[in-house]
């Protein structure tokens, strides 16, 4: 019980680490994912192929393997000299972007084709059609799956703890190494994650409400 109070500074550092990594990866994954979804519905075959290949590769590779690759395989070929945090950000964003891409694409598919056709007949370009007509309508459908994806990302960020990033799970490792009772440590870590994931689902619920329209 006292373990949290006695080591609160480290716990806070770990908590902030998890939040920061999650937020940064979410933003990057969202941007990447939307762009990739654009690729996958675009009229340009090479872009469609690129998007499909990206999703197939990163959605089907275990996250730990991606981490091992950027730590052990990539530097053998070309050493970027990224610090551990940047590596974690890249891996988490790339991995999550494939899921975001598919969620967004399914959202785009829910927008009736007539909408896009109407936009095209008004003389809009592909980007105008996507940006002003299709995506705003797709957003509503995409919110629930996106919320799940970002909650999964929060929990996935624990893997970064095994690759030199200060986050919640690492705090548990440090203290259990010093011999503190593991049950309490797990409880506090679990609560830490709950706070983050509840916040995410709360935010998305608010967004859903504010974007509600009668269909």
């Amino acid at each position, binding site marked *: 019980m006292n373990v949290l109070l006695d080591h609160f500074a480290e716990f806070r550092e770990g908590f902030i680490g998890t939040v920061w990594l999650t937020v940064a990866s979410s933003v990057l994954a969202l941007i990447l994912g939307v762009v990739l979804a654009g690729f996958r519905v675009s009229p340009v075959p090479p872009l469609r*192929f690129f998007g499909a*290949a990206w999703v197939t590769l990163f959605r089907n590779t275990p996250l730990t393997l991606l981490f091992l690759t950027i730590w052990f395989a990539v530097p053998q070929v070309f050493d970027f000299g990224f610090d551990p945090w940047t590596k974690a950000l890249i891996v988490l964003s790339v991995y999550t972007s494939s899921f975001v891409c598919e969620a967004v694409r399914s959202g785009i598919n829910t927008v009736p084709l007539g909408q896009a056709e109407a936009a095209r007949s008004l003389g809009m370009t592909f980007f105008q059609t996507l940006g002003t007509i299709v995506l705003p309508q797709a957003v509503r459908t995409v919110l629930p799956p996106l919320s799940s994806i970002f909650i999964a990302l929060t929990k996935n960020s624990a893997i970064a703890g095994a690759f030199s990033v200060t986050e919640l799970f690492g705090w548990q490792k440090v203290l259990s*190494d010093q011999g503190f009772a593991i049950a309490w440590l797990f409880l506090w870590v679990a609560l830490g994650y709950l706070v983050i994931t509840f916040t995410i689902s709360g935010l998305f619920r608010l967004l859903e409400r504010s974007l509600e329209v009668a269909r």
Partner: protein
Amino acid sequence: MKLRKSAAAAAVVAALALTATACGGEEGTAGDKPKDPTGGKNAPKLPTYDVKSDVKVDSSVLKKAQKAGKIVIGAKDDQPYLGFKDSAGKRSGFDIEIAKMVAADLGFKPDQIEFKTIDSGVRETTISKGDVDLYVGTYTINDERKKQVGFAGPYFMAGADLLVRADEKDITGPDTVKGKKVCSIVGSTPLQEIKKSKYGAKTVELAKYSECVQQLINKEVDAVTTDDAILKGYAAQQPKALKVVEKPFTKEPYGVGMSKDDKALRDAIADAIEAHQKNGDYKKAYDATLGLSKSKYTEPPALERY
């Protein structure tokens, strides 16, 4: 449709290529057998231990084990020459030898020992639940742990040290790591120590020591830190490539873990360790395991009985 198929195929090929490179480490990855650097012929031989019969100790744990005809001992399986399990399932190393000599004095033959791999994080839980009778595996005696388990020992005085590449000139001890990259496993105590401003090392934390050693060989980090016993095991595995600095900067007395209030068993094990230190088995076991790292043998610490 055609397009999709080829994309999937390309992805699979790429994924496989990644896997191959990620696992295609050089020698010394976790799955390798420890190699015998001395060529086998004149290598130090492991001692064999005389098994005692009719052992009488007033300990419920031991009585239960005697009834079952086997003793269950928790150990590590990923520390070469210390607590290691090869791909054939054979266990070897200094801690394993300690377990065997203690078990022999309690009346158990090597084939009556059931080793179980126990992760560091759950040692106390496993011992207090009674899932293992004893635990031998780089288990540092400290007050926080004494609240939960009992210790016989120390049987070995380890200390945090540094493992470096054999051609390393700059790192000669903990005072020479300022600004250098030092690797250890997540949450390890030596790493917390070397982070302190008086040493000022940059730290890298990974999940396994073998990953750290791989990073050291790849020149991604400059040193690996943890208990010297573990480091000596890796140096013994690759004596041409790696060496231990041998300037320990913490004290880690290793003990045999067991249930908390079993004084009779604690004393019996302390007696066993003492007897084998006196008759030379202890040194022979060291020479044939950690001693292969070219690190010098030190006399074992005095036992603490409580």
